[in-house]
C-alpha cells in the first residue's frame, strides 16, 4: 500500500516535535483511509513558473491502479490525457474554482467517470484535489430503465391503437353494420386481452422483483405441478395439434423447496412458450428428474457438437454452486425452429425478441422468460438453454431439492 505517498502525513511529522502521538495517529489513520477508498483520489500541483507541467503529488491505491501511476511527481498528462479532464483540472488550478464533469474512457470496455476538482486552500502552492467516481453501472441502469419504459409503452400502444381505431369505426360509418360490429368486437376483445396479459406480466414481474431477496418458503411436488400445467394447456395443444409428453419418476414425489405458485408460473411460461414455438404435429418433451447436480452440460449433446451446428448452450441463471446441493431438474424440449447461438444469452432480457420474430403472431408479452429468470434466481436455482437452429430448443430448470414435513 502506498499510504506513505500522502504529503500531509509527512508534513505532520516534520517540524512539530511536540505533536501528540494521537494527532499523528489520526493523520496516518486518515491517510490509510484515503488510500483504501474505492474511488480514485489524486492531489495535483503546478509549480509557480510559466508552462510548468501539472504533476501528481499524491494518489491513493485506486487511482494508482486505474491510471497506472508509477510514482509521485509524475506529470498528470502521462497518466490521464483526456482533453476535457485535463482542461477541467487546469482550469481549477488557474481560477481556483472547483468543477465537476463526466467523461468516458472509450474503447470496447468504455467506463464512465465523474470527475470532481477542488482547490486545496491551505497550500501555498497551486494544488488541487481530483476525485474520480466510476458511474458506468449507474449509466447502464439508466439506459436500461429508459429502454424498458420505451418498450413497455410501445407494447401497450400497439393494441391500444388498434382498439381506438375500431371504436372510432364503430362510432362512425359501421354503426349499423351488424356483421362488421361482431367482427370488430372480436378483434377488440383479443387486443384488450393482449393488453391485459402484458399488464399482468408487468405487475407480476415487479412483484417478483420486490421479493427477489426474500428466500421462498414451502415445498412442492414439481411433477404434480408439471402435470397440472400440462392439463391446463391441453386445449391450446389440441387446437395446434402439438403433443405434450411428460416423463417423471413413477410412484414417488419430486419435491423441490420453493413457492408452489411461482414454480407453477415457471412451468407455465416455459411449457407455454414451447407449445407456441412448436410447429404443428410435433411433440414437446417434458422430463422431470428428482435428483441432479447443477451440470447443464451433463445432459444433451457435447458443446462442440452444438457449436458445429450453429447452436449452443448458455447458462442463463447459475446458482451459487455448492457441490453437495442436489436439484430437481426439469427439461422442456421442443422441436421448433431453434435459436441461433448469438441470441441465447439475451433471451431473459425484457422484451428481447429474436430478430425476424414478430410479437403479434405468437402472442407473447416478451416478459415470460424474464419472469422465469427472476423466480429461479429467487429460489437459488439454475436455468440453462441449449438450442440448434432447425432442430429445437431445450430449457433446463434446476430447483433445490426439498422435503415434505
Amino acid at each position, binding site marked *: 500500500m502506498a499510504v506513505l505517498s500522502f504529503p500531509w502525513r509527512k508534513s505532520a511529522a516534520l517540524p512539530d516535535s511536540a505533536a501528540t502521538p494521537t494527532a499523528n495517529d489520526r493523520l496516518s489513520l486518515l491517510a490509510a483511509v484515503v488510500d483504501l477508498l474505492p474511488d480514485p483520489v489524486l492531489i495535483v500541483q503546478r509549480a509557480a513558473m510559466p508552462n510548468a507541467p501539472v504533476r501528481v503529488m499524491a494518489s491513493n491505491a485506486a487511482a494508482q491502479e486505474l491510471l497506472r501511476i508509477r510514482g509521485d511527481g509524475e506529470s498528470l498528462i*502521462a497518466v490521464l490525457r483526456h*482533453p476535457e479532464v*485535463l482542461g477541467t483540472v487546469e482550469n481549477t488550478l488557474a481560477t481556483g474554482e472547483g468543477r465537476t464533469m463526466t467523461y468516458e*474512457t472509450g474503447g*470496447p470496455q468504455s467506463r464512465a467517470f465523474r470527475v470532481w476538482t477542488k482547490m486545496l486552500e491551505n497550500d501555498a502552492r497551486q494544488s488541487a484535489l481530483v476525485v474520480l467516481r466510476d458511474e458506468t453501472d449507474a449509466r447502464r441502469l439508466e439506459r436500461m430503465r429508459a429502454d424498458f419504459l420505451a418498450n413497455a409503452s410501445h407494447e401497450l400502444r400497439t393494441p391500444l391503437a388498434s382498439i381506438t381505431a375500431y371504436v372510432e369505426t364503430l362510432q362512425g360509418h359501421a354503426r349499423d353494420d351488424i356483421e362488421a360490429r361482431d367482427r370488430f368486437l372480436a378483434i377488440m376483445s383479443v387486443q384488450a386481452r393482449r393488453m391485459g396479459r402484458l399488464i399482468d406480466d408487468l405487475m407480476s414481474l415487479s412483484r417478483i422483483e420486490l421479493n427477489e431477496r426474500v428466500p421462498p418458503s414451502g415445498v412442492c411436488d414439481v411433477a404434480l405441478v408439471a402435470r397440472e400445467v400440462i392439463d391446463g394447456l391441453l386445449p391450446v395443444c389440441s387446437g395446434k395439434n402439438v403433443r405434450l409428453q411428460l416423463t417423471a419418476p413413477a410412484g414417488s414425489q419430486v419435491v423441490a423447496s420453493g413457492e408452489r405458485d411461482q414454480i407453477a408460473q415457471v412451468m407455465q411460461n416455459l411449457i407455454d412458450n414451447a407449445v407456441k414455438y412448436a410447429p404443428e404435429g410435433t411433440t414437446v418433451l417434458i422430463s422431470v428428474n428428482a435428483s441432479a447436480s447443477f451440470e447443464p452440460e451433463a445432459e444433451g449433446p457435447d458443446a462442440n457438437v452444438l457449436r458445429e451446428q450453429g447452436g449452443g448452450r448458455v447458462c442463463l441463471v447459475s446458482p451459487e454452486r455448492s457441490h453437495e446441493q442436489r436439484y430437481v431438474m426439469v427439461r422442456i424440449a421442443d422441436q421448433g425452429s431453434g435459436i441461433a447461438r448469438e441470441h441465447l444469452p439475451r433471451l431473459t432480457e425484457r422484451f428481447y425478441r429474436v430478430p425476424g420474430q414478430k410479437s403479434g403472431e405468437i402472442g407473447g408479452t416478451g416478459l415470460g422468460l424474464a419472469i422465469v429468470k427472476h423466480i429461479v434466481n429467487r429460489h437459488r436455482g439454475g436455468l440453462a438453454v441449449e438450442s440448434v437452429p432447425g432442430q429445437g430448443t431445450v430449457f433446463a430448470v434446476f430447483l433445490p431439492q426439498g422435503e415434505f414435513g
Partner: protein
Amino acid sequence: MTEHTLKFFGEELEQLKAEVIRMGGIVESQVAQAVRAVADRDVGLAERVVIEDERLDVLQHEVERGAIRLIALRQPVAQDLRRTVGSLKLSLVLERAGDYAKNIAKRALVIAHADPEIPLTRSVQRMGELVGDRLKEALDAYSAGDVDAARNVWNRDEDIDEHYNSLFRELLTYMMGDPHTIAACAHLLFVAKNLERIGDYCTSIAEIVQYEVAGEEFLDPRPKWSSVEPPARSSGEPA
C-alpha cells in the same frame, strides 16, 4: 555539460513529450466523438470535431518548433536525440490521424441527412471502438515508454483489417440491394477506410516507441493483410 544544463534539458524534453501526449489525448477523443457522430447521426457533435481539429494543427506546430529548438540549442545525442526526433515524428502521425477523424466527422454530417437510413452504423461503431482501444494502447505504451506494450499493438493490426473487410463486404451487399443507399454507403466506406488508416497509425506509434526506447526497429515481419490474399482480391476486395 553542467548538471544545471542536464536538468534543464530533461525538463524541456519532458514538456515536449507532454505536448505530444496532449495531442494524443485530443486525437483519441476526436476519433471517439467522430464515430459517435456517425452512429448517433449527431450533427452538432460532428461540427465540433471539425472545429476542434485546428487545435491539433496548432499543437503540432508547437511540438515541431520545440523539437527543432531543442536540437539546435542542446544538440542532444543517443536516446535524448531519439526522444526528440520521436516526439517530432509522433506529432506528425497524430496530426494526420486527427485529419482522418475530421474527415469522418465531415462524412457524418452527410450521412446524418442520408435517406434511407443505413442500419450498418453499428458495425462502424464496433470498428471505431476497436480502433479507439488500439489507439489508447499505443499512446499508453508511448507515455510509459513500454516496448512490450508497443510490440503488442504492432502485432495486432490484423483484427482491424478483418473488421474493415467484413464491413466492406456488408456495404457492397447493401449497395447492390438498393441503389438509393449508394451515396450514404460510399461515405460509410470512407469512414471505415479512415478508421483502418488510423489503425495503421497505431502501429506507426508503436514503431516510434520501439525506436525511442531501444533505438532499433521491429525486425520480424508483421502479420499484415493476411486476410486479403490474392484469391480474396479477385472477389472485389480493396487492394
